[in-house]
């Protein structure tokens, strides 16, 4: 084991100086393992607490930057292969049907709002996942579980507990068939 050449007092830990003032390497094993004086203990532990709180502060900044990244670069709609979900004549105006798009997804709700106008959304309420029901004459979608309401035209939450809009399924009418062509993220 090597020894330092100087015998000048060397602080151990922060401001702790061994009673003999010798180099830390010359101290007994127990003092090298516990180099902080008990008088310094409160100060060092409190300063370490501040250090970890500042690290938490850094973690929050990373979280904020992730939200910025997602808001700037995340895809706003995901395109899947177009899939026929209904024929135009299958639904009367004001009628609705459920379907899965893409296959295996959560239930989607297709609503006929006009002669050749259709809208489709995720059927699960963004509050607590209850299925929503179209109320076409009022231009709304209703979640009966907690009396939540969504705009049928846009999917925006307009009343009740839901805070987020319903994810929209993009639909197109080609000839006499309604096709689903993509899914918009909820946060768009």
């Amino acid at each position, binding site marked *: 084991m090597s020894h330092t050449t100087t015998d000048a*007092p060397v602080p151990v830990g922060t401001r702790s100086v061994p009673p003999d003032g010798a180099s830390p390497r010359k101290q007994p094993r127990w003092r090298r393992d516990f180099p902080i004086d008990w008088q310094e203990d*409160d100060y060092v532990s409190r300063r370490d607490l501040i250090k970890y709180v500042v690290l938490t*502060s850094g973690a*929050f*900044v990373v*979280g904020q930057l992730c*939200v910025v990244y*997602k*808001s700037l670069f995340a895809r706003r709609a995901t395109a899947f292969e177009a899939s026929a979900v209904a024929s135009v004549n299958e639904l009367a105006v004001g009628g609705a049907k459920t379907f899965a798009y893409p296959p295996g997804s959560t239930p989607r709700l297709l609503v006929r709002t006009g002669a050749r106008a259709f809208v489709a959304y995720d059927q699960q309420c963004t509050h607590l996942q209850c299925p929503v029901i179209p109320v076409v004459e009022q231009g709304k979608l209703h979640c009966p579980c907690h009396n939540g309401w969504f705009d049928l035209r846009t999917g925006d939450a307009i009343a009740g507990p839901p805070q987020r809009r319903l994810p929209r399924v993009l639909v197109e009418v080609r000839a006499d068939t309604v096709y689903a062509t993509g899914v918009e993220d909820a946060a768009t």
Partner: protein
Amino acid sequence: MKHGSRFARSQRMTVVSAILPFVILIVVLQLWLLTATVNAYLGGDRAVALPAALVSLVCLGLNVGLLRYLYRLD
């Protein structure tokens, strides 16, 4: 070798005890800011993300400044 400090041990203890509540207050503010930003983002409002991130960064700067000040007391 530096033995001297501007503050005695008891004074440094007072300083660290004074700084701690400020740092915790700033972190709680950041937590609230992150919660509000995520809530707004999920609600479709993307405009708040960048200003909120800048404010959070300023908070981190303040915290780091206070921590550096503490280390410079030794």
